[in-house]
């Protein structure tokens, strides 16, 4: 193993994907929580907290997706996936799109200052949170965190 070899740094013993994934999961769920709270309490400050959590969640999704795909391409040589790994990949892609979509809806409303956030975002956020949680659960199961390993 070489300390400056990109594959070693990203995967061997480090497995950056399983480290980085905790950032978007935590930030997105907290962001959604604060958005629901802002809706309930009608407080702009809470909405701002939600926005910045969702923004960083969307940003941190990018390296997670990249390291996940690189792990598939490099460690497993891009072989056709099936079973739990395929399910994790598909759920991960859907979750990433939903995280970016939720942030985009908030960004769009913020750019048009004074525009209220659309009400339909809340069910989308709830569905996205479920996808994120299930994807994370599958990832934990695969990595052994949620299992015997």
């Amino acid at each position, binding site marked *: 193993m070489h300390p400056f070899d990109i594959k070693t740094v990203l995967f061997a013993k480090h497995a950056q994907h399983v480290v980085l994934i905790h950032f978007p999961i935590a930030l997105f769920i907290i962001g959604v929580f604060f958005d629901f709270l802002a809706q309930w309490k009608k407080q702009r400050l809470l909405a701002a907290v939600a926005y910045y959590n969702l923004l960083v969640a969307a940003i941190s999704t990018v390296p997670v997706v990249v390291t996940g795909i690189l792990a598939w391409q490099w460690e*497993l040589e891009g072989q056709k996936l*099936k079973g739990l790994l395929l399910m994790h990949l598909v759920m991960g892609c859907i979750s990433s799109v939903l995280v970016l979509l939720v942030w985009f809806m908030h960004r769009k409303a913020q750019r048009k200052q004074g525009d209220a956030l659309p009400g339909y975002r809340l069910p989308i956020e709830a569905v996205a949170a479920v996808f994120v949680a299930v994807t994370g659960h599958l990832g934990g199961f*695969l990595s052994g965190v949620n299992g015997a390993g």
Partner: protein
Amino acid sequence: MTEVKIDNFSFGPSALTVSVGTTVTWVNRDDIPHTVVSTDDAKTFKSKVLDTDEKFSYTFGKAGAYPYFCSIHPKMTGKVIVQ
């Protein structure tokens, strides 16, 4: 033919001694997919992703020590010693 069982995130036995020409078969008895990849740079042997109950076999034609690991779970390691 000698068998190595993959279960509970470990190879069993983790170290195995065989004679030249022996075929070793790894069987995944775990609920989780695993791989069997030799640690050397040349990747002497490398399985595809093994789902539950799938097998991978390799025949050792030369004497030596062959450490290997699971590329999905790098902490899972094993060794085949060929005499």
